[in-house]
């Protein structure tokens, strides 16, 4: 954990940013987006790096969480004490149902079946005509916290996202270090040996998958509130690909790599989009180059420097 100074410094910088002149609407919106995606990316890094489960459908859990907010909003339920548990619970339930089947497969088949479940969620969202269908759904207002409009406050929302990001990272790291996490990591390295020791990997993997999904739901709850808008695009497989990219860019071996990856991703994407209309012409090759040459990701580079 000696190299963990970097993510701590990043979190600290995010904490100080609004006080250091970056408290405007534009900056906080951008930072909130980065932090929320970082939460989703950390949960995916927990799956990919920790359990060795490469999911190409993780955006679906974020989408389920976001749609829970939208659907409750449409029915007049805007109290966080009710919305948040539903958002997280729905995402966890979605992960439980899809994971129960997906985890029976492995390798390429797992990637493909998670992609397939992600597509199912996408098409379901597109067909919800009562909640905007293809066009998406605009929230009437942000979710209320105990009857107050706390989340409307820019700073409060900023620090909420930051706190939840730190919490997600700490909880995921502790979970991976626990006995439960040890079994997960062992099953990633060699499932047969884990079985030989007398443990079945399946329930451990499924539990890990559900936990990651629940965190994805939390990210979805925040994302819906940050943009006050939910659309099927949140669940598209391209979003899942981007989340995977954040994890890889940061470095698969370390959870905090995902935080770096998400921040760099959002900054890069925003900056490139300002520079040119066809920014993906540059972004695509950058992604390829990062995969080819940046082995171990940004975290790997940092670790080697301090190795």
């Amino acid at each position: 954990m000696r190299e963990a100074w970097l993510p701590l410094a990043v979190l600290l910088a995010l904490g100080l940013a609004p006080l250091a002149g970056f408290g405007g609407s534009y900056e906080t919106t951008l930072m909130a987006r980065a932090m929320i995606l970082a939460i989703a990316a950390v949960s995916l890094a927990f799956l990919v790096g920790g359990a060795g489960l490469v999911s190409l459908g993780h955006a679906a859990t974020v989408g389920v969480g976001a749609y829970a907010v939208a659907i409750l909003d449409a029915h007049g339920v805007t109290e966080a004490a009710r919305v948040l548990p539903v958002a997280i619970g729905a995402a966890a339930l979605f992960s439980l149902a899809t994971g129960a089947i997906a985890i029976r497969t492995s390798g390429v088949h797992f990637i493909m079946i998670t992609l397939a479940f992600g597509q199912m969620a996408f098409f379901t969202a597109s067909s919800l005509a009562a909640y905007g269908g293809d066009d998406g759904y605009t929230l009437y207002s942000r979710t209320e916290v105990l009857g107050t409009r706390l989340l409307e406050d820019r700073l409060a929302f900023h620090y909420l996202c930051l706190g939840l990001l730190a919490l997600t990272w700490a909880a995921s790291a502790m979970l991976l270090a626990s006995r439960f996490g040890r079994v997960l990591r062992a099953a990633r390295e060699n499932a047969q040996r884990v079985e030989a020791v007398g443990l079945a990997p399946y329930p451990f993997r499924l539990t890990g998958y559900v936990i990651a999904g629940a965190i994805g739901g939390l990210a979805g709850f925040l994302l819906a509130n940050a943009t006050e808008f939910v659309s099927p695009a949140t669940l598209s497989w391209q979003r899942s690909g981007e989340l995977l990219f954040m994890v890889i860019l940061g470095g698969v071996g370390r959870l905090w790599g995902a935080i770096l990856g998400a921040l760099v991703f959002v900054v890069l994407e925003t900056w490139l989009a300002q520079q040119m209309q066809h920014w993906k012409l540059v972004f695509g090759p950058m992604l390829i180059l990062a995969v080819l040459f940046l082995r171990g990701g940004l975290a790997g580079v940092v670790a080697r420097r301090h190795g």
Partner: protein
Amino acid sequence: MTTQLLLVQALNGLQLGILLFLVAAGLTLVFGVMDFINLAHGVQYMLGAYLGAAFAAATGSFWWALLLALPAALAAGLLLEVLVFRHLYARDHLSQVLATFGVILFVNEGVKVVWGAAPLQVPVPALLEGGIEIMPGLQYPLYRVAVLAAGIATALGLWWLVERTRAGMLVRAGATNAPMVSALGVDIGRLFTLVFAFGAMLAGFAGVLAGPIFSVEPGMGDNVLILAFVVIVIGGIGSIRGAFVAALLVGLVDTLGKSLMPDLMRLFLDPSAARQAGAALASMLVYVAMAAILAFRPAGLFPVRTG
């Protein structure tokens, strides 16, 4: 739902299946021989369609366009193989997924720059205009019949190539056990480049054929790609026969589902709800089929690799 409509939809389904087979054939061989996930294979299909449209506009003849687009698609495939894919064979699936995802971003944006974001229309060749009577009083477009015939002819040719020639024998052997084939003195790298280029051309061919039926637009390859993945996973990775059966299955299920589901739902729901639920269910149907098949046969319908 009359018998006539059902017949037309079944033909449309078969025709979608044939196009899917042309895309999936290359994908499954590349996957089977080199264990390489190529998300960018759908891009080959899109490139084929765009090249076909561009050459058709330039020469004024669909046939010239077909003749020119095939080698151009082949060249594009070879270029991508040399520039990007070749460096990924030894890497894990995660890296392959991401780098080829980068290729998708680049090419999707690239066609927007070159040809614009608006869909292109490709006229049906004069020779194949009009319809033929498949049942008394029922016309079916001649071009679609031609696509069906061309696809079946290609499938037969491919079957002959894979099952009856020396090159095909090597490909099959490579899909079963690549290291063994390599140990027996076959240049597996060259074999793969060959398979890859051929697969790219087949996908391009499907794209050219699809031009006059569907609109040619950026991102048109993404949906086809995901359906093609469903096809090869259902069929069993590396199996041409499996890809053929699964492609027809997926094409039929998708097309018939989309036309039948809303009517089926009307038995249980009121019309507007039925239309909505039916459309959602229909889009999901192929993924449900895939999940169900994988749950019972994790290696697909025609598994190739043993052990």
